[in-house]
C-alpha cells in the first residue's frame, strides 16, 4: 500500500460522497416506504452499489412488479459498466494485478469511473489509489443509505440545501476535464444530443438509462471519423 496514493484516492472521493449523500439518504427513505427493512436497504446498497438500478427496484416494487422485472431492468442499466470497465483495461494493463483490479472494479460507478479516468490522464493507476477512491465512495453510499433508512420520514428536504445539484455539477466538471481534443468536443456534444433525442422518442429509455448506452456507442463511433493525430 502506498500511503500517498491511498490518501489521494480518499481525497478524490470526497466530492463523490457529497453527491451520493442525498441520493443514498433518499434511497434509504424510499426503500423503507416500499417495505424493505433497514438491514435489507443497507445490504442492497452494499452488494449492488448501483444508484440507478436501486431506484428502479424501488419503482418496480412500488408498482407491484416482479423480481424478474427488476433484475432484467438492472441488466440493461448496468450494461454501460461493460464499456467503462473495458475502456479502463488499457490503463490497468501491466500496472495493476488482474485479480486486485477485478476485485476493486466492483466499486466502478459513473462517478468513480470519471474521477479515475481524469487521474489517469497524468498519473499511473495504482491499487492504493483505486482502493481509496472506490472503497470510500462505496462506504459513503452504504452509510448514507443506512442513515436514510433509520431517519425515514424525519429527513428534511435536501433539495433546499442545493445538494440535488451535486452530481450534475460533478458531471459538468468531469466533462470539462475529459475534453482534450477537438474530436472530444464533437463526441460529447453528439452524445448529449443523441441521448436526449433517444430519450424523447423512447421515454422508457430515460428511466433505465438505455439512452445513455445508445448515445455513448454511437457518439464514440462518430469520433472515429476524425483522423487527427493526438
Amino acid at each position, binding site marked *: 500500500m502506498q500511503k500517498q496514493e491511498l490518501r489521494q484516492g480518499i481525497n478524490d472521493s470526497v466530492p463523490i460522497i457529497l453527491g451520493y449523500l442525498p441520493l443514498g439518504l433518499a434511497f434509504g427513505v424510499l426503500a423503507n416506504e416500499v*417495505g424493505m427493512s433497514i438491514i435489507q436497504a443497507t445490504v442492497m446498497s452494499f452488494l449492488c452499489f448501483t444508484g440507478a438500478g436501486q431506484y428502479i427496484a424501488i419503482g418496480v416494487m412500488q408498482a407491484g412488479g416482479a423480481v424478474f422485472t427488476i*433484475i432484467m431492468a438492472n441488466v440493461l442499466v*448496468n450494461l454501460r459498466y461493460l464499456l467503462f470497465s473495458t475502456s479502463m483495461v488499457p490503463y490497468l494493463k501491466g500496472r495493476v494485478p488482474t485479480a486486485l*483490479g477485478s476485485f476493486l472494479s466492483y466499486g466502478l460507478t459513473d462517478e468513480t469511473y470519471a474521477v479515475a479516468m481524469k487521474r489517469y490522464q497524468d498519473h499511473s493507476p495504482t491499487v492504493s489509489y483505486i482502493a481509496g477512491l472506490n472503497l470510500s465512495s462505496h462506504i459513503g453510499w452504504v452509510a448514507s443509505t443506512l442513515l436514510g433508512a433509520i431517519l425515514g420520514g424525519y429527513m428534511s428536504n435536501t433539495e433546499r440545501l442545493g445538494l440535488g445539484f451535486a452530481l450534475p455539477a460533478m458531471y459538468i466538471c468531469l466533462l470539462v476535464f475529459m475534453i482534450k481534443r477537438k474530436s472530444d468536443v464533437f463526441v460529447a456534444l453528439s*452524445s448529449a444530443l443523441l*441521448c436526449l433525442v433517444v430519450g424523447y422518442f423512447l421515454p422508457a429509455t430515460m428511466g433505465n438509462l438505455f439512452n445513455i448506452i445508445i448515445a455513448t456507442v454511437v457518439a464514440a463511433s462518430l*469520433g472515429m471519423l476524425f483522423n487527427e493525430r493526438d
Partner: protein
Amino acid sequence: MSGTDIWVMIVGVSIVSMLPRVLPVALFTRYEFPEPLKRWLSFIAPAVLGSLTAVSVLAPEGFIDLSIHNRYIWAFLPTLLVAIKTRSLFYSLLVGIVTMALLYNYFL
C-alpha cells in the same frame, strides 16, 4: 413482495451489477487491444459524461424540460464557467450547490 423475494431480488441485482464491471478487467487485461479499438474506447469517457450532463441538467425529473423554470439549466451556467476557469472539482461543486440552494430558496 415478501421478505424472501426481496433477498432474492437483492442478490440477483447484485450479480447483474457486478458482472459487467468485473468481467472486462478480469478477462481482457491479458490482451493487447488493437489501435482502432483503443481509440474508440478513448471516446467512451467524453461520450458518457456528455450524455450524463445532458440528462441531469435538461431532464432532471426524468423528462426533458427546456423551460426557464428548470433550475438545473440556470445552475449549469456558473458551474460550467467555474469548471473551465478553475479546473477544480471542489470549486465547481461548491458553486453549483450554492447556486442551486439560492435558486431553490429565493428565485424559482
